[in-house]
């Protein structure tokens, strides 16, 4: 039935005048709630062909890409007026969640007093030739379509580890917390397959976005010549295929409108804990293993400390392995995480942590056997070194995860020194605590003897490691004096501005736990077994405090590692 097909006054007569026995407000509320669907026209009900077809027919390729070609977005910067309809249309036509967008529009500004320059830049996934998201994904949830080159995300395969978000230089994949997975632009591949235009293309009032077929070698060549978009991350990393074209000369002082903003990043708390705990595990095992099997280890040490070392090693190893699962959006599917071993450092890290935990189990078993069969000791120690080595390999994989993201604050050097020093800074007090705890059930060794034999040396080593780490971390503040507003300067500004309280606390915990408390243990009373010395319980308490403060300090350090890292991205809009 069509819209108001009856006499225009028909409604007036059929709509019940307020009945005497019903208050008018009830009548009106009923009318308000009434559905009016039958009054609406059903125009074009059976029309399968899209009415907009004529509008976008020449904005999409006529044929599929041939060999050596793929689909790509092309943006005519001169035509884009900045209305951002593409963003909203993509959202509506793809049924995205309420606050989810797959496209965004940034702003470039520059020029001179006489010739000011303002240019909006619409951007979505660049469907790169060498997608970093795909490379980083531990579960093979990305697929580069062999025919079209479209980089698709397999939503049901995704475990929500979000590593692709770190990997993409263009900040494209978006985490959807409600679903526990990442989603992103798929160039409306199924629309293209039936000759329809992607949502952004069909919704642009100024026809600024189109799909074209690009020659892969040409994309490679242009990336080599750094031809992508001024101020965007360098194209050499992933070889993005989007073509930005403009007939206007772009001014040399062009900057993104958000260039001078330094926004704190997501802090990824599960990752903060996971990294600190795994590094604690590896460090503790390594230091402990060196203590019980190094040339300095005499009989009492080995006998007293080995069992507690083995047991603690098992516990921390398992903690380390399991901590990794917490940052996964869909932990039930975390078993897939080894699929990406060929390219993903995330997969490799998880494998290495698994091996570390496995060796720690074997090592604990071997030590257990060695209690009654001492000839197993060399084998047990060998397993201990293997465990330590696999732990170090795992830390190495962790380093690579961040080093591969091209964030300057996460460079290989910076990340490696941080992560390894965290292993030392936390490993030493744990090892010391294990030794002291070992004295609990062994009469052969006293806590004061431990302190004398190597405890104080460990304290000195710890003070040196913590001092070195804090100094190295502080190096970033030099960037405050940098003239250019580089990513590292932004990091330094964040650390001293928005995140300054966390930064201060980080130093407080580091200095108290890693310098002041170890310094207390350097006193003669620590090695004095006579009654005048420190009580063994006091020694244990100080080391426990030391460890606790250092753990908090390292957690804060790692929090800042994430929150203050500035990710490369496409030009953004002002102060969003």
């Amino acid at each position: 039935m069509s819209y108001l097909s009856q006499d225009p006054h028909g409604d007036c007569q059929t709509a019940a005048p307020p009945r005497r026995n019903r208050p008018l407000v009830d009548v009106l509320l009923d009318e308000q709630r009434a559905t009016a669907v039958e009054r609406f026209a059903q125009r074009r009900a059976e029309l399968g062909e899209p009415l907009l077809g004529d509008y976008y027919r020449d904005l999409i390729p006529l044929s599929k890409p041939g060999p050596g070609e793929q689909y790509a977005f092309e943006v005519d910067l001169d035509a884009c007026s900045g209305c951002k309809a593409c963003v909203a249309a993509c959202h509506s036509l793809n049924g995205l969640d309420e606050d989810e967008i797959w496209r965004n529009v940034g702003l470039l500004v520059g020029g001179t007093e006489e010739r000011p320059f303002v240019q909006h830049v619409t951007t979505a996934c660049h469907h790169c030739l060498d997608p970093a998201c795909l490379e980083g994904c531990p579960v093979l949830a990305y697929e580069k379509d062999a025919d079209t080159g479209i980089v698709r995300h397999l939503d049901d395969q995704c475990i929500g580890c979000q590593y692709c978000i770190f990997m993409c230089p263009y900040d494209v994949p978006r985490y959807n917390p409600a679903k526990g997975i990442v989603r992103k632009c798929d160039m409306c591949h199924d629309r293209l397959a039936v000759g329809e235009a992607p949502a952004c293309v069909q919704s642009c009032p100024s026809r600024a976005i189109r799909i074209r077929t690009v020659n892969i070698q040409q994309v490679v060549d242009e990336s080599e010549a750094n031809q992508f978009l001024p101020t965007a991350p360098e194209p050499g990393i992933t070889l993005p295929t989007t073509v930005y074209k403009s007939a206007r000369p772009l001014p040399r002082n062009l900057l993104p409108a958000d260039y001078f903003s330094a926004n704190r990043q997501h802090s990824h708390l599960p990752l903060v804990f996971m990294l600190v705990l795994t590094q604690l595990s590896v460090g503790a095992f390594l230091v402990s293993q060196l203590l019980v099997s190094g040339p300095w280890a005499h009989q009492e040490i080995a006998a007293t400390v080995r069992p507690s070392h083995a047991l603690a090693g098992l516990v921390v190893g398992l903690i380390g392995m399991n901590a990794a699962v917490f940052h996964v959006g869909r932990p039930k599917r975390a078993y897939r995480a080894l699929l990406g071993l060929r390219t993903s450092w995330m997969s490799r890290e998880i494998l290495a942590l698994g091996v570390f935990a496995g060796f720690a189990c074997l090592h604990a078993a071997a030590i257990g056997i060695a209690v009654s069969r001492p000839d197993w000791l060399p084998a047990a120690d060998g397993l201990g070194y293997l465990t330590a080595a696999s732990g170090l390999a795992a830390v190495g994989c962790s380093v690579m995860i961040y080093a591969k993201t091209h964030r300057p604050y996460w460079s290989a050097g910076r990340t490696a020194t941080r992560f390894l020093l965290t292993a030392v800074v936390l490993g030493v007090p744990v090892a010391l605590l294990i030794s002291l705890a070992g004295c609990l059930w062994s009469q052969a060794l006293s806590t004061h003897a431990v302190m004398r034999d190597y405890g104080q040396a460990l304290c000195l080593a710890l003070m040196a490691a913590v001092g070195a780490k804090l100094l190295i971390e502080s190096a970033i503040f030099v960037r405050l004096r940098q003239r250019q507003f580089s990513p590292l300067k932004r990091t330094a500004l964040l650390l001293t501005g928005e995140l300054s309280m966390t930064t201060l606390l980080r130093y407080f915990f580091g200095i108290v736990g890693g310098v002041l408390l170890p310094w207390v243990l350097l006193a003669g009373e620590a090695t004095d077994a006579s009654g005048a010395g420190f009580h063994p319980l006091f020694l244990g308490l100080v080391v426990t405090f030391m460890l606790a403060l250092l753990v908090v300090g390292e957690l804060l350090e790692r929090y800042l590692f994430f929150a203050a890292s500035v990710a490369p991205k496409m030009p953004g809009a002002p102060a969003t």
Partner: protein
Amino acid sequence: MSMQLAPSRVMAGPFVRQWHGPLTEELLRAPGRFGLGQVPRSKMPDATTTLVCGYCSTGCGLNVHLQQGEAVNLTPDVEYPVNLGMACPKGWEALTVLDAPDRGTTPLVRNEQGTLVAVDWDQAMRLFCQRFQDIQRRHGRESVAFLGTGQLPTEEQAFLGSLAKFGMGVLHGDGNTRQCMATSVVAYKQAFGFDAPPYTYQDFEESDVIVLVGSNLCLAHPILWQRVCRNPHNPEIIVVDPRTTETAMAATQHLSLAPKSDLDLLYGLAHLLIQEGWIDADYVKRHTTGFDAFAAHVAAFTPECVEQATGIPKERLHYAARTIHKGERVSFWWTMGVNQSYQGVRTAQAIINLALITGNIGRPGTGANSITGQCNAMGSRLFSNTTNLLGGHDFKNPEHRAKIADVLGIDVALIPHQDSWAYDRIIEGILRDEIKGLWVVCTNPAHSWINQNTCREILEKLEFLVVQDMYHTTDTAVRADLYLPAAGWGEKDGTFINSERRIGVVKKVAKAPGQALSDFAIFRLVAHYWGCEDLFARWQQPEDVFQTLKQCSRGQSCDITGIDGYQILDESGGRQWPYPHGCDDAEPHRRLFADGKFFHEDGKARLLFEDPRPIPEPPNGNYPYLLLTGRGSASQWHTQTRTSKSAVLRKLYPSVVYVEINPSDARREGIQPNSRVIVQSQRGRITAKAFVTHSVRPGQVFVPMHYDCVNQLTQAHFDPYSRQPSYKDCAVRIAPLGQTPQG
């Protein structure tokens, strides 16, 4: 280098890689029928229907996708003659903002502790009538006033104006349209004899020269910019704007004049056109009056003088004049840069004069064309019963009163003999204790009115403030003594009139939350409780009002007696007025004045002019910068009561207020990019983020109007003819946060 493409699915079988599943299915698309192409499978429509968008006056057709009678999605209507399948982000997100946690679901009354508490409609209506009637008893009937809007359908505006004035005895009512297009109304009325924007959007596509004055079309009316982009004639685009806006960037000539020097510039252009003989003398003679006086007036506006006043080099002025001369179809367009000015009426008329003296009117691709602001500002202009008696009539004219009384079937004595006060006078009336009760419907004066701190203080003086709105959280609603929850766009029926005089239909496609009622139903309820429902007995549904308004328009320039009803509007893609009885013109693009006949008695247009006046509060030693305000982005609408409710739109504009400042000024004031700064005028001070950009000239700063603090700075001054506030010229100083701004 050699390219190694990514490892493909060869490596892992389907067992380890899950290509399908519940998460994948959530985003599947499927053919949507209805000519839509693919749509999200979860939102496949079983019916669709088109309604006019409820934001701006472009009046796009939005095709709403329905499931079981409820709206689930929308796409711009491809066959609607306005937008041809396109929409701006606000349109795309029009349904989203209906679902918001702060939608009013029940009337709220301020209790003795000062908090708003829920009551039912019966209590609310009794209180409404009791308090307003009490005020009227004590202070006279004119002590209660109302403020309406350009956002309501015509039928609701007419009901509000009729109910208040004929039923409740209210004398003074005005709309927020005073803030957006009052200037154009007066300019047209005086020049053409009726408030008649003469154009159709098709003119954007047919011009060879397009002149945009004070209009950032790209952001304010993106779909009209689309029409410019569709122009096949490679038009010259002249943009007159102090700022380098997106539109100015896209122009072929950007005249970046000193703020408020547009009158000098336009007179300067007229001077050159006349001096060079680049006018259509025949047209001037046959269709205008006042040319000689006008020519004498602009004789003083020599290029040298104009250069001094505007900063535009005389060569560029001459080039612009020559461009207008060379154009065969020149169209002139203006928006808020002109309207929101203390000399806006004369500025608009200076634009009209250019069109008239060059004969660029009444033909395709020409015209002196005001682009309106709100979706139904044009309906308000004709039918809100505020400035004009229903249908563009005059309250002071006894014949008009008799005609309307006859159409409505009411006692002619109920119709006031005098005009309403304008918005600013109503606010002043509150200050002077002349107005004690105020009914605010669908507008947000506590944010949008000029010199906000004073305005808010004045609103505090009211004995009883009623706010009727979709949201109970607007800056004005939170100050209300009584809040009435209204259904919004998409939750009720009616018609809008867009900028090109096109009447289009809005429909109920979504359920209003809780006890919220359409404004139409609320007016019925008020009439019932007030005891005047007999006057409006025939208005049971919005379309009943439409039928009445048709009769009101009979014989007027805006005669729409030839439009049968909503159904024909729905089927035809809207109808442009005039559409008198017997008209069967199916042409989707109609313009006025093809015959050169204007609405004055002599059929001639008036050339009106006046000397430019200086900015009342120019930058000075203490406040060295001139503050411009205006639209920030295409994703923001006015005071953001709606657009802030969409998560998508929120991602498309800066979340905090920002001030655009020129790099040289930022250097001088020691302002770092993106740092927080203080902007201070004589009336208020705000904190904003600095956006350092060349797009504002030195000595000027720009703050978008959408952030609620902006009008703390603006100075209340008005166009003397239209009473429209002049939002875009007040003096401010600016300093980094933590420093006291120095002059």
